């Protein structure tokens, strides 16, 4: 990152880093520079130094993000906070990086001089690429459609057959007006009685129509094959990608939005190809052939037919952008509708328990209505323009009839020729009409294509290295100076270093939001740490294949998610090839077997949507059985018993005890008593590792853990005091 963007004119040569800022420490808009030499921080206002600080006077540097602005701050060795300057958020990343370097400097005495590494920029517009492959500003819509076309490649055989059949059927259609002309000119107008010739022509017409039907059948058969396969591929790819993306990318989107992209958007692309895929080639070809035929027959009449066409195209091209935007709006409303539906149905228990059904019905109705309204608006715009353009387009036909009729009267043309000509004109309008429809279809489709490719082309920020290690995990875990923040420059965990030995049971304690779950997310590699290393059995977690890592880590969370299916399916989720005996053994160890036996259909009892029929404790025991069957080397218990009553907690604790025996276990629990059997405890405080030791050691130290225990005892006493009179 370039940390010397611009320097004040008067700056000395020893200024290593210099970044412009736009607010003074007092919050007044200003134009200045934050400059750093090896010894000093210099605050320039325009070209004059207004403040000067010795770096050695500080013990810490931070970047405080506010709402619209952020502050560069330093904490002096006396504990006083100094704000150097403030700036808008576009400057935040550079300031955060620079302050991180300064912070590293005061902590280690190592002044890192970062090379002015060139940041990749778009060759076209010069905007930073920010890790993307293509500039988001310059990516054009055409490219997306080309990418879509490329996906036809595996089905090119069917595609070619479909195109050939359509061309052949179109050729048959082109021949029929010629035969009509023969019938009129040779037999109808002269009132000929040569029945044999007449019958031959009629039979040819009928045969040709039958032939066209056969071609059409093969065309449709193959077109559908291509479109349906393409749709299936897209749906599968989008779904697969949504599974592969990191938690960071997934949490940016709601479940409703992802569902929409997998089903609705992919289907829209499939429909587009069914309706228009091969048509594009054929219609353009027939436009060309019929156009040539018309000009050969009579160029003056042909000219009258095509003169209005450019006008119509001009109107339509103007319409394209407006249509595209309107369909984007329809898409947005449909997504909101999907999300709302998902939201309400997901929280149906809350809705019902607060008696808010009417309010939710109203909310859903509003969404649904807005969606319908936006779709109607888009369609109205389209159908308002259509009749006008249709009239302008076909106006040439009236000229052809007038002048063609005059030519017949002057014997310059036969009736058969005019009929053939007008039939061709009508046939010419067909591909033109299709071309006119294209902006509407294309606009609608390119919105969906854009959304689909946005997911397909997103790079997961947690990736396997080349040739990742397939590790047979033993269970040693080491955190080595680990920093992590969900926002890169706002660390949740700061400099965590600790070693967890194989088979140990470790409890992580600390206040809410201190980073307990974050530590677990890092072990599971749902996110990558921003600095430092996490090692499992001495191997950096980033070098272990994600599949190998997660297949050996078992997780029991506070909220157990049971998939729609029966108990057996839910337990074997962790190991689909497990024998039934293994399943029962796992259920026994998890203290789940006994209650499963009592269920109406035993292991085949459907646990339904989220397993609502089962109690929290029962669901938790199924989750533990699942984890036992998984036979993990490392077990993670994230508030596994938090939502249970004391009696159930006891049963679960017992089950957990069997699960964790001899395996490295990391447990988070708010109730400190839950962690009484932990070998050692990690105490997190303000994102840092405050204490690490056994319960007795930590109690003796009378530090953070001691305070937590005392505070909790106090609360328990208070609760008892409050509940005692009521229960009496």
């Amino acid at each position, binding site marked *: 990152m370039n940390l010397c963007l611009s320097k004040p004119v008067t700056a000395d040569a020893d200024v290593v880093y210099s970044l412009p800022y736009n607010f003074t420490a007092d919050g007044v808009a200003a134009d200045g520079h934050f400059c750093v030499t090896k010894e000093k921080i210099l605050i320039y206002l325009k070209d004059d130094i207004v403040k000067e600080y010795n770096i050695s006077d500080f013990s810490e540097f931070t970047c405080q993000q506010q709402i619209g602005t952020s502050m560069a701050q330093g904490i002096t060795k006396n504990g006083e906070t100094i*704000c150097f300057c403030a700036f808008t958020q576009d400057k935040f990343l550079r300031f955060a990086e620079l302050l991180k370097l300064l912070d590293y400097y005061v902590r280690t005495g190592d002044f890192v001089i970062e090379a002015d590494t060139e940041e990749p920029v778009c060759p076209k517009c010069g905007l930073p690429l920010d890790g993307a492959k293509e500039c988001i500003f310059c990516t054009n819509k055409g490219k997306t459609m080309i990418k879509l076309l490329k996906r036809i490649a595996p089905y090119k055989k069917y595609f070619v057959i479909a195109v050939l059949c359509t061309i052949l059927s179109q050729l048959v259609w082109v021949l029929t007006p010629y035969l009509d002309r023969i019938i009129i000119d040779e037999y109808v107008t002269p009132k000929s009685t040569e029945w044999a010739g007449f019958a031959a022509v009629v039979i040819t017409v009928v045969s040709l129509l039958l032939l066209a039907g056969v071609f059409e059948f093969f065309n449709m058969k193959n077109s559908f094959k291509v479109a349906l396969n393409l749709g299936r591929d897209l749906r599968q790819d989008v779904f697969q990608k949504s599974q592969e993306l990191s938690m960071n990318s997934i949490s940016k989107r709601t479940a409703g939005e992802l569902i929409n992209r997998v089903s609705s958007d992919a289907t829209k692309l499939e429909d587009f190809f069914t309706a228009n895929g091969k048509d594009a080639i054929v219609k353009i070809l027939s436009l060309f052939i019929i156009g040539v035929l018309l000009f050969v027959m009579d160029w003056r009449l042909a000219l009258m037919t095509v003169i209005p066409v450019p006008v119509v195209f001009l109107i339509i091209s103007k319409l394209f952008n407006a249509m595209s935007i309107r369909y*984007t709006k329809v898409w947005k409303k449909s997504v909101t509708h999907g999300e709302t539906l998902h939201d309400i149905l997901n929280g149906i228990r809350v809705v019902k328990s607060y008696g808010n059904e009417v309010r939710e019905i109203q909310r859903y109705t509003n969404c649904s209505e807005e969606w319908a309204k936006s779709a109607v608006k888009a369609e109205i715009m389209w159908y308002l323009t259509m009749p006008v353009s249709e009239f302008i387009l076909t106006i040439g036909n009236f000229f052809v009839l007038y002048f063609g009729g005059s030519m017949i009267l002057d014997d310059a043309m036969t009736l058969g020729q005019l009929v053939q000509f007008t039939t061709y004109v009508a046939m010419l309008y067909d591909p033109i009409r299709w071309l006119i429809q294209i902006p509407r279809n294309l606009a609608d489709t390119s919105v969906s294509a854009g959304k689909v490719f946005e997911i397909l082309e997103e790079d997961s920020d947690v990736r396997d290295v080349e040739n990742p290690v397939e590790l047979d995990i033993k269970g040693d875990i080491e955190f080595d100076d680990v920093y992590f923040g969900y926002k890169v420059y706002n660390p949740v965990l700061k400099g965590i270093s600790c070693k967890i030995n194989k088979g140990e049971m470790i409890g992580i304690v600390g206040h809410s939001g201190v980073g307990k779950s974050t530590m677990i997310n890092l072990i599971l590699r749902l996110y990558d740490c921003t600095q430092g290393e996490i090692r499992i059995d001495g191997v950096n977690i980033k070098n272990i294949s994600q599949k190998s890592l997660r297949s050996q880590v078992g997780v029991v969370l506070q909220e157990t998610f049971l998939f729609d299916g029966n108990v057996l399916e839910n337990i074997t989720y962790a190991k689909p090839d497990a024998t039934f005996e293994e399943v029962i053994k796992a259920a026994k160890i998890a203290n789940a077997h006994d209650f499963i036996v009592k269920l109406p259909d035993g292991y085949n009892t459907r646990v339904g949507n989220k397993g609502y029929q089962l109690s929290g404790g029962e669901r938790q025991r199924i989750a533990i059985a699942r984890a036992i069957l998984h036979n993990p080397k490392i077990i993670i218990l994230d508030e596994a018993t938090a939502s249970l009553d004391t009696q159930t907690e006891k049963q679960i604790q017992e089950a957990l005890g069997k699960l964790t025996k001899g395996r490295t276990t990391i447990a988070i629990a708010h109730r400190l008593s839950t962690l009484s059997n932990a070998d050692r405890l990690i105490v997190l405080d303000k994102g840092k590792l405050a204490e690490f030791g056994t319960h007795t050691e930590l109690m003796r130290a009378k530090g953070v853990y001691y305070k937590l225990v005392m505070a909790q005892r106090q609360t328990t006493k208070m609760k008892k005091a409050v509940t005692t009179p009521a229960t009496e």
Partner: protein
Amino acid sequence: MSNSIQEEVYEVDKLTILDCGKIKLSKEPSGYLTLDYDGKVYRKVNPTRLVPFVSKTTYISLSYENEEKEFREIGVIKDMKELSKEQYKLLDDYLEYKYYMPEITKVYSIKDNMHGAIFVKADTTSGQKTICIRDWYQNFRMITYDYLYVNDADGNKYFCPNIHKLDKKSRLVLEMFT
């Protein structure tokens, strides 16, 4: 850096509405404010708009972090109008700076790259800009029927308090995206 008073029991469930007559705010080197209230001095006070999209000058929470870095709310200013003129200006200036958010006054064009990003060419109170918005259906949205809230790719925020009061062309451009 600690507050000059001994910390009392923090009553997390008690709403304290501050008496504006007793409030004395001043700027301090940390970039935050110092509050002198009812004989007590609080350092590194961070004012927060509780309902920033509804009102900028009512329901302002004043808080600080204690030595344990725990959040401590001193109280809530119900309406800044009750502050003295000088105190009002100081707090208002601070909030305007903390919530620095240029207002969109005119929209020239919106380009959609069909990859989830839009580029809004607009006049704002901090000059003409092309604002790049990623995931626009999340970051370019109407908070209420009138209020447009924009969060650009860099994290800068923009707003338009009433898009229906913009000129006709701006409204036409915006209509498609709101």
